[in-house]
């Protein structure tokens, strides 16, 4: 049962991160604009974030599917989601009205709201399940 929950969470997170990184990798400039619109990073770091973040999402997504790398990937996912949720909360509280930039880098993407923060928290719970899971040997032992 626990093994199924871990696998399901890992696959869910992998799919979410894969879907999220594709438009960003395809249009780095549009993603840089989305980062700029958040108004949280210094100008000198906007393009750096726009170049590396999508690739980190991609490699992390794939690593979630590899048993030996899963915990490390889950830790990265936890940190990324915490940063994203923090940035969204900060903007919602100060009334900055920007689109999430999570799965679309379009100017016209829907505005970020508390729903996005809640979604991130749910995904963080899934990442925590993966992170706290015994290693694959332990899971196998228990399953047997």
């Amino acid at each position: 049962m626990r093994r199924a929950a871990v696998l399901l969470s890992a696959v869910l997170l992998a799919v979410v991160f894969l879907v999220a990184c594709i438009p960003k990798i395809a249009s780095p400039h549009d993603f840089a604009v989305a980062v700029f619109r958040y108004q949280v990073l210094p100008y000198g770091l906007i393009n750096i974030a726009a170049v590396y973040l999508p690739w980190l999402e991609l490699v992390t997504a794939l690593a979630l599917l590899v048993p030996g790398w899963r915990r490390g990937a889950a830790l990265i996912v936890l940190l990324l989601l915490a940063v994203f949720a923090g940035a969204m909360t900060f903007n919602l509280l100060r009334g900055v009205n920007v689109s999430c930039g999570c799965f679309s880098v379009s100017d016209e993407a829907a505005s970020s709201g508390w729903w996005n923060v809640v979604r991130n928290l749910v995904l963080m719970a899934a990442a925590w399940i993966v992170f706290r899971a015994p290693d694959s040997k332990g899971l196998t032992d228990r399953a047997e």
Partner: protein
Amino acid sequence: MTDSPNARNRLRETLSSVFAIAAIAAVLGTAANVISPRRIPWVEDWSHYIEARALQEGMTLITTAEAWEYFQRGTHIFLDARSDAEYRQERIPGAFSLPFMAMEEKMPEVQFLLGPSFPIVTYCSGETCDESFLVAVELRKQGMTNIVLYAGGMEKWVEAGHPSERGP
């Protein structure tokens, strides 16, 4: 948590994979941004991004002094492209709310004011927001031809000591 050799091993393995994932992402990101036709500069001056984009679109930008002049003469309609909450908190007196993120719902409330050639000023919070630009682009698509962009926005307006109002 026990500080057993097992726990230490797990921690070491976890951190190793974190660094390995970050390193692979760094190599791929660097390679992609070197060879991709869609590469972007590593560092860019974003401080005048909105103005640059507006000029590319052939839009007219106005200064705070010009915005003040239009305000005093009453020749232009001011459209506030920020969220409703920001609009209610503080705005240029007499401005109408047209948040970019809720344009479809809000448009009917202001459409009757906006003739095709009626002079319009759009603004948002300041030089780092682009809702005023996006609203201006959208209005141009709808056939309005006389739109100017006040990129300094609320921030520069207040900084210059001009009046503001609040409330619904």
